[in-house]
């Protein structure tokens, strides 16, 4: 698309609000407000791959989780899984694996609840172009107090699960190379069991909100920021959804398998990353399909699409209902992420329920040792999608190479496509570019629950500033919510 022609105006949404991290959107319009280009830019630089070099390998699970304050457990566990390989351990003890799973499901539950209730529910409950003074989490708390309390309590429950498995609600130390550093005491288990039935019920309620919104607004949901794409996730050997461990599966928009049951230690044979000059975030793609056709979605929508089934009964029933909308074919609707996310939320709490009743969690075998290796890859299905950690470690135990492909990076191209699609559908030719119209762009981005920096500082109210600039850089108009 030509972006250098004269008389183009540039709209900048900076920062994008109610997402984790800092990003901005630029939209180039001509004199008749026709959209020429719309892009999501990630404006933060992440230097973790550089400054972990030289550090001892056992620090990685604790060090790299500092990437993020929202889902640090995902980085903690992905690094720990890579370091399991480095210390020569291919199979953990049942106690270690189940403690890690419990930690991870707690993470998924709190992160999905946070996103649904705090970040995206204002758009769904009040409308995309509702008054921004109401269209926020405080507005939700005022008009839907029961729902708001459930959101807070569900997130708290997930954080409590993390605390008893990792030692702290944020940035704990539970997973260590080759295992875990604690088991679950009877007292810790019983505290969590007291509220588990309530959490399952609330997760079902949240799923109903997301499903009802999608079904009742199908005419709006179907075209909104939607496009066909490939989908990628980990998958269990029997085809079940598995958020903690599995092999890689990629499918195309019709559900045909591009590759399946790929050992992720060999991910570099299948995945590559492209660099573009307008973003610090790379653009991953499936090697065999190239940059044009190889991009893919990850996260809840991709995982529900790639899974043959879910191994917990309530979430499986919900998955079947979800897949019926598209006659069993992959769902390629951007707004369907919310529904899929709440199916996963229910799955996570069902898994927590199962694990709390598993006596293996009180086992004594915590760590396994093996023969040191020079390299390890750890993958996990983080709340926002497939997370890759890859390290090389020298004979002195120091890290010599780190490559992290974070979940949101995998969704870079889809988010850009969603931004472009919504801009074309809603802004193109509009007589006036209102805040409500611009929020449509943010709604599309929010559906992916991006963690743009994997940083802690993006929660809460963030300033929204929109500048209308002509092609010569002259400021025509500026609006701010501050």
């Amino acid at each position, binding site marked *: 698309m030509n972006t250098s022609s004269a008389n183009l105006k540039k709209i900048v949404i900076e920062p994008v609000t109610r997402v984790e991290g800092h990003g901005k959107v630029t939209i180039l319009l001509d004199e008749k407000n026709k959209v020429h280009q719309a892009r999501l830019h990630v404006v933060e630089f992440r230097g973790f791959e550089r400054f972990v070099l*030289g550090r*001892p390998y*056992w*620090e990685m*699970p*604790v*060090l790299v989780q*500092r990437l993020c304050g929202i889902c640090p457990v995902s980085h903690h566990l992905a690094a720990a899984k890579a370091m399991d390989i480095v210390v020569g351990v291919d199979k953990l003890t049942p106690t270690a694996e189940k403690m890690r799973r419990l930690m991870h499901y707690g993470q998924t539950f709190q992160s999905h609840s946070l996103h649904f209730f705090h970040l995206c529910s204002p758009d769904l409950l009040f409308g995309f172009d509702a008054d921004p003074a109401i269209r926020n989490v405080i507005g939700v708390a005022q008009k839907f107090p029961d729902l708001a309390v459930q959101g807070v309590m569900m997130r708290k429950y997930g954080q409590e699960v993390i605390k008893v498995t*990792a*030692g*702290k609600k944020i*940035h*704990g*130390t*539970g997973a*260590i*190379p080759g295992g875990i*550093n*604690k088991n679950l005491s009877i007292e810790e288990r019983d505290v969590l069991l007291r509220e588990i039935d309530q959490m399952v019920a609330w997760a079902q309620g949240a799923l109903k909100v997301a499903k009802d919104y999608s079904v009742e607004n199908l005419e709006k949901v179907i075209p909104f920021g939607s496009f066909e794409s490939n989908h990628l996730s980990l998958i269990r050997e029997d085809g079940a959804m598995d958020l903690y461990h599995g092999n890689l599966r990629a499918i195309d928009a019709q559900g045909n398998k591009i590759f399946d049951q790929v050992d992720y230690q060999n991910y570099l044979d299948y995945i590559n990353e492209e660099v573009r000059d307008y973003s610090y975030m790379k653009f991953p793609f499936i090697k065999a399909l190239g940059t044009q056709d190889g991009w893919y979605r990850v996260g809840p929508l991709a995982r529900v699409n790639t899974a043959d089934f879910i191994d917990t009964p309530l979430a499986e029933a919900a998955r079947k209902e979800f897949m019926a909308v598209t006659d069993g074919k992959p769902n390629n609707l951007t707004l369907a992420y919310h529904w899929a996310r709440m199916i996963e939320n229910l799955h996570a709490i069902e898994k927590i329920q199962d694990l709390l009743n598993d006596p293996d969690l009180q086992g004594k075998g915590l*760590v396994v040792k093996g023969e040191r290796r020079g390299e390890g890859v750890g993958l996990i299905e983080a709340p926002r999608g497939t997370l890759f950690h890859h390290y090389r470690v020298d004979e*002195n*135990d*120091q890290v010599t190479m780190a490559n992290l492909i974070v979940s949101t990076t995998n969704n870079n191209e889809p988010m850009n496509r969603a931004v472009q699609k919504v801009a074309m559908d809603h802004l193109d030719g509009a007589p006036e570019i209102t805040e409500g119209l611009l929020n449509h762009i943010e709604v599309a981005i929010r559906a992916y629950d991006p963690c743009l920096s994997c940083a802690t500082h993006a929660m809460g109210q963030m300033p929204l500033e929109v500048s209308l600039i002509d092609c010569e850089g002259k400021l025509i108009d500026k609006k701010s919510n501050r």
Partner: protein
Amino acid sequence: MSETITFTIDGVEVKGKAGQTIMQAADGAGIYIPRLCYLEGCEPFASCRVCTVIVNGRPQAACTQPIAPGIVVENNTPEVTQIRKDIIEMMFVEGNHFCPVCDKSGNCELQAIAYRLGILVPKFPYLFPVRELDASHPYIFIDQNRCILCGRCVQASRDIDGKHVFDFVGRGPEKKIRVNAAARLADTDLDITDKACDVCPVGAILKKGVGYAVPIGQRLYDKQPIGSDIEANANK
């Protein structure tokens, strides 16, 4: 029998034996005086100054200052606490102490004293020095970023292990710990069972692979503040 000497610490009468330091007498009385370089069994040399007390109006190092009849020692007062906080804060800014990811966290004496003194954020500017790592030894890892130059490893290696693996080199800002080899720790005769491997108060000398094996909540200073063991003597 040794002569009993009576003096006061913060107005409380304390009895010690002739030849004891203020720190030894205070320990016996269950009064905690913070310290970092002091190593039991070795000759104190007052390098860290964290044990500074005010004796009859003058600052002195409690680890080397002998007790005397009737001396008035100020220990837990706002003035002394401020001196110690300044010293501790300078240690933090002189090195690169990233407590959140340090495997010594929870077992670190520097961190524990900072917590005990109520330090939140150092008021001095961080220097962010460029420091070396030595991971060459199969069992021991040296991270100079965290070294506070207390000298415990120097003393332990020389006086207890009889090896002289570590020593100071340089002066002033250039002062650092060096190993007794051309370049690397692996070329010394340091053994994992040496006392020198166990005395570092911070995370500068660590045993490899131990990492975060002790969960949060069960680490040494998770349970009680540093000095609590000494203060328990007060009730005996």
